[in-house]
């Protein structure tokens, strides 16, 4: 599948944003946030800015962005529609969370309830996003039990990293969030490795023989495609990445998205230059996850390209 930057941005940025939102609610509940009137509202705005940026980016992917509002109508059947609805309904409670917090302070039960609702809705949004991919039967690398949990894990992981950075920036000290980020990096990294193991072992969905109904005639090979130059289906779905290249990028992802942030989160948790460590961790997480998402597309094969021998 073609890794379109708008979609890569959408999925990674909303992960950061809604992941952060979820952790803010949890930390708020547990009293793990700085005792400041301002921290949470700022953090929520940061979270929403990330999510919003992702959503705006996704609009760029549309052929008719001015009609984007229509995407809210089919929530009964379409995960994309649900994603849209969920992402929007996350905003009011999230804003309420921030505003009430600001007005009433960290003890506001209503604020925390709103926060928990917003956090949950954020995660629901991420889940909806993940299900857009996980539900697509023609793409085996997406349509599997890993996709949805992975998206949730990566959102929580990136949210934790972002929270750790915000806390370090605010307080200049080590924080619990860094520890959470460390744990999340390890779990997310393992999940990614498990995913790769899974897709590498997975048999293809179909063969050209079953795609053409010619199973009885032996192996089927393409002779001539309908045209020589690329078409929409091939541009969109025929993107292929060389194994060698993919392996290299996978190593980079493991390093940049998980290993390095884990080490840096550990440092931050230990109080060794927490701000710098969290900042670098966040930057690498972003870069790593963006690459991870790129690979998630680039390594995905669409069954329709069988017809073109790809």
């Amino acid at each position: 599948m073609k890794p379109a930057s708008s979609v890569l941005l959408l999925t990674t940025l909303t992960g950061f944003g809604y992941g952060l939102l979820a952790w803010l609610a949890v930390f708020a509940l547990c009293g793990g946030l700085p005792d400041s009137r301002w921290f949470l509202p700022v953090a929520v705005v940061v979270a929403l800015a990330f999510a919003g940026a992702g959503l705006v980016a996704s609009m760029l992917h549309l052929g008719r962005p001015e009609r984007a509002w229509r995407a809210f109508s089919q929530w009964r059947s379409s995960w994309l529609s649900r994603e849209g609805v969920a992402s929007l309904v996350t905003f009011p409670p999230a804003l309420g969370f921030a505003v009430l917090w600001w007005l009433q302070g960290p003890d506001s039960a209503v604020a925390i309830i709103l926060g928990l609702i917003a956090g949950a809705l954020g995660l629901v949004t991420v889940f909806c996003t993940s299900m857009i991919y996980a539900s697509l039967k023609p793409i085996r690398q997406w349509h599997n039990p890993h996709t949805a949990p992975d998206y949730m894990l990566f959102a929580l992981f990136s949210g934790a990293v972002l929270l750790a950075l915000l806390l370090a920036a605010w307080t200049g000290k080590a924080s619990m969030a860094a520890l959470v980020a460390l744990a999340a990096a390890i779990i997310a990294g393992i999940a990614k490795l498990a995913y790769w193991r899974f897709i590498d072992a997975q048999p293809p969905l179909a063969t050209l023989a079953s795609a053409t109904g010619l199973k009885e005639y032996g192996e089927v090979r393409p002779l001539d495609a309908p045209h020589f130059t690329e078409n929409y289906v091939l541009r969109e779905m025929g993107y292929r990445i060389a194994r060698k290249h993919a392996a290299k990028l996978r190593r980079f992802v493991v390093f940049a998205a998980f290993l390095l942030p884990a080490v840096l989160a550990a440092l931050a948790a230990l109080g060794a230059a927490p701000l710098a460590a969290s900042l670098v961790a966040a930057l690498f997480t972003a870069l790593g996850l963006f690459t991870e998402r790129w690979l998630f597309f680039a390594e995905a094969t669409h069954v329709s390209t069988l017809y073109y021998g790809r």
Partner: protein
Amino acid sequence: MTSLPQPAPNAKKLGLVIDLDTCVGCHACAVNCKEWNTGGHSAPLPDHQPYGEEPDGVWFNRIHSFEAGCGSSSKTVNFPRSCLHCENPQCVTVCPTGASYKREEDGIVLVNADICIGCKLCSWACPYGAREFDELAGVMKKCTLCIDRIYNETLPEAEREPACVATCPSRARHFGDFNDPESKVSKLVAARGGVDLMPELGYKPVNKYLPPRKASIPTKPQEQGGGTGNALLRLLDKVLSR
């Protein structure tokens, strides 16, 4: 509605039968489809760099050719590919806007270009690569089963069939109602063992493909000569007994 309709008990199930035993791969159906549809319901079907380096365009029907098997039993198969108007099409259910829909009355899967936002998700959901994106209009397009021909009352009855069917020079394409066991398409499928493409994906395509077959002529063992002389005698026999 993006959710799949519950077809009425007497609804039609319209679609195509494509006979791989007869298709010579001439691309007539593909070009005539383009010609009809570029001015039809889904007008236009744009072309990019029409005289340039990478010519490309929107086609609702594309013709592949494949080789199957090896050695003397191998075959060449020409293979037209267009929307199969699936009974269980995910291209419809994924659509966030309802632009992509399956019609209750005849099962035709269509895109409403007036509300499509061009998110392309339906094309990702189609295992058959049957959806075509109009980059200039920013909307998805696809085979309409020639909705503006098959019900077109300005056409004589006999011409109310899809353009690709009407034009196919070897008559490898057939159109009809699969819910009517007496229709030509139902009978062909029954008689010739029509198959589904990628049944394992569960889309339940309506269009069916008829597999290639092999006619043969049984012969009796032949008398075979022992040299020119004998054969001439036998010929003489034949010639004399005329």
